[in-house]
């Protein structure tokens, strides 16, 4: 039997090998002032937001849902934290907790409308995609908010044991969610609901609560990702923070082997997928491709990966194999 994450690992390995061979300076690593520097470390530091998003998105997608609002939640949480620290003079813990609480609140709103209101997740979260950034713009009056708060900046670019702090945040959250999925019944419930919500309800699962919690967790991840992104550049930039990242997150989850139709949660796969995407992004940047142009390549990759999961692709592959045999 093939290992569970065979193809995601292969894809990531292929991309890494390509870069090690053909992108100059990719493999260089050096230790300076007790901290590792190099492209490989950058991939993990810059990729931390997408990795966090993909952890949360895995839960929502496993339920057969989707969350398009994660990018906007990032902008919102960064803006709120920055505003609280600069204008209100609040301490770092207060700012962080308030921002995360707001993010969880947005998730609860999403989850409640989907679960209890019966509205499609895509509509609810599309509304939140626009409303979240709109709210952030209104709060900050469309201005970028700069701050100089070392304790807060640590979240984005601090160093622990020679490695960037965001890596530890991702690891901690992924471990927490991972344990929840594998060591408690939550994973089973999630997959059961994703594959057949009606059967799950008839079995006595509290489907609404599960959906609510999944959306709240997803938003919490997005809120944390927003704090990292803001802390990294010492600035809350509502126009650009988390922009277009919802596609990256969905792409990471799908690359990792979680099916968009729900019923399967593969957290490790999602993290590999997120690493793949960040490596791709970094590679394109190192080759001088403008950020806006990389959208084209990412969209193409996203569609191809989705296509490979469909029955249509399997039919095509089968026809190809039988033609080869003949």
């Amino acid at each position: 039997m093939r290992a569970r994450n065979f193809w995601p690992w292969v894809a990531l390995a292929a991309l890494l090998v390509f870069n090690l061979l053909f992108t100059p300076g990719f493999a260089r690593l050096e230790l300076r002032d007790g901290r590792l520097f190099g492209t490989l470390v950058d991939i993990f530091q810059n990729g931390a937001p997408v990795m966090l998003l993909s952890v949360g998105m895995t839960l929502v997608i496993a339920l057969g849902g989707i969350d398009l609002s994660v990018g906007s939640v990032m902008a919102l949480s960064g803006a709120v934290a920055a505003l609280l620290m600069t204008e209100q003079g609040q301490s770092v813990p207060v700012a962080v907790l308030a921002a995360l609480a707001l993010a969880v609140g947005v998730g609860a709103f999403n989850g409640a409308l989907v679960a209890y209101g019966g509205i499609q997740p895509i509509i609810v979260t599309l509304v939140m995609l626009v409303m979240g950034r709109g709210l952030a713009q209104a709060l900050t009056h469309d201005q970028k908010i700069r701050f100089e708060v070392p304790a807060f900046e640590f979240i984005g670019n601090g160093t622990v044991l020679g490695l960037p702090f965001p890596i530890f945040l991702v690891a901690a959250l992924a471990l927490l969610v991972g344990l929840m999925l594998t060591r408690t019944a939550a994973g089973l419930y999630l997959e059961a609901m994703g594959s057949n919500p009606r059967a799950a309800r008839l079995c006595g699962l509290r489907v609404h609560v599960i959906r609510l919690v999944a959306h709240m967790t997803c938003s919490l991840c997005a809120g944390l990702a927003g704090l990292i992104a803001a802390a990294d550049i010492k600035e809350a930039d509502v126009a650009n923070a988390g922009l277009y990242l919802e596609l990256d997150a969905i792409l990471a989850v799908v690359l990792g082997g979680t099916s968009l139709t729900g019923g399967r949660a593969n957290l490790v796969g999602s993290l590999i997928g997120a690493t793949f995407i960040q490596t791709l992004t970094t590679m394109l940047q190192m080759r001088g491709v403008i950020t806006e142009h990389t959208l084209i390549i990412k969209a193409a990759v996203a569609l191809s990966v989705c296509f490979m999961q469909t029955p249509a692709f399997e039919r095509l592959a089968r026809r190809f194999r039988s033609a080869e045999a003949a």
Partner: protein
Amino acid sequence: MNFVRKHITVLAGALVYVLLYAVAALRYEGFFSLPVFINFLSNNAVLGIVAVGMTFVILSGGIDLSVGAVMSFSSVLIGVLVMDMHWNVYVAIAAALVCGTTLGAVMGAIVHATGIKPFIVTLAGMFFVRGLAFLIHLESISISDPRHTAIALASVGPLPVTAVLFLGFVLVGWYVAVLTPFGREVYALGGGEEAALLMGLPVRRTKIAVYAVSGFCASFAGAALTFYLSSGSHLEGVGMELDAIATVVIGGTLLAGGVGSVFGTLIGVLMLGLILTSITTYEGMMSSGMTRVAIGGLLLAFVLLQKVLTRRAGVGRAT
């Protein structure tokens, strides 16, 4: 089904619109006048043209998240073709329409051939087309061309050209939806794909065509935008997909597909315009950010209302 029951959502929308207009007219001096009404039409024409295309997609049971990107792309393309390549304005617009329609058709074909959910395909399409727009020109581009300006300043009676285009789209859209075989196929597809297939309707052709229509409308809206702003803009299309879905839903079209009308969308556009104009201009209290929040809240309220109404009347499928 008699007339009133069949058109209950549109009639209710029209009634609410009249009531809202009356309240606003009582509250604000000079609100109840022809110029103000014409302003609604022309200020929201771009959105309206996009929304007419979106109506067809939603009627067929699908969704198109790429419309804002296609609109931006088309406006930027027209800007580049006219200003940098010195093409004739009409040829440039025709080229943009061909591109937009093709992009839509390709998305429709992917939706049908692969069975990937429409929102994933059009979401990827949105990113793809945004990337394309940045590829042809990294910044918004202002258009100053005598022929282009002449069209932008043209008018029919008191109606500016963009308002005329919008009304034209509504009329043609209504005709296509109600009086042509294609329109019936769209409604049938939205009512239930399997049934449509068993009835022998050309499901594949219809599915591809609705996304092509949406792409055509979105790229035409891009042309209308260049008349309205005298520029091709990357920014205007951001969030446009939500506005378009909002107007379609407010106009009484069910997100589940199969129920709704193009005239409802006209009312939806006017309603959104009325509410936003009265709050922003006359009350003078909203930033662009809060406007977005208001549109989102309004859309959610209408979707919930639809849920309640359809559950009671037993219309539409459970989703």
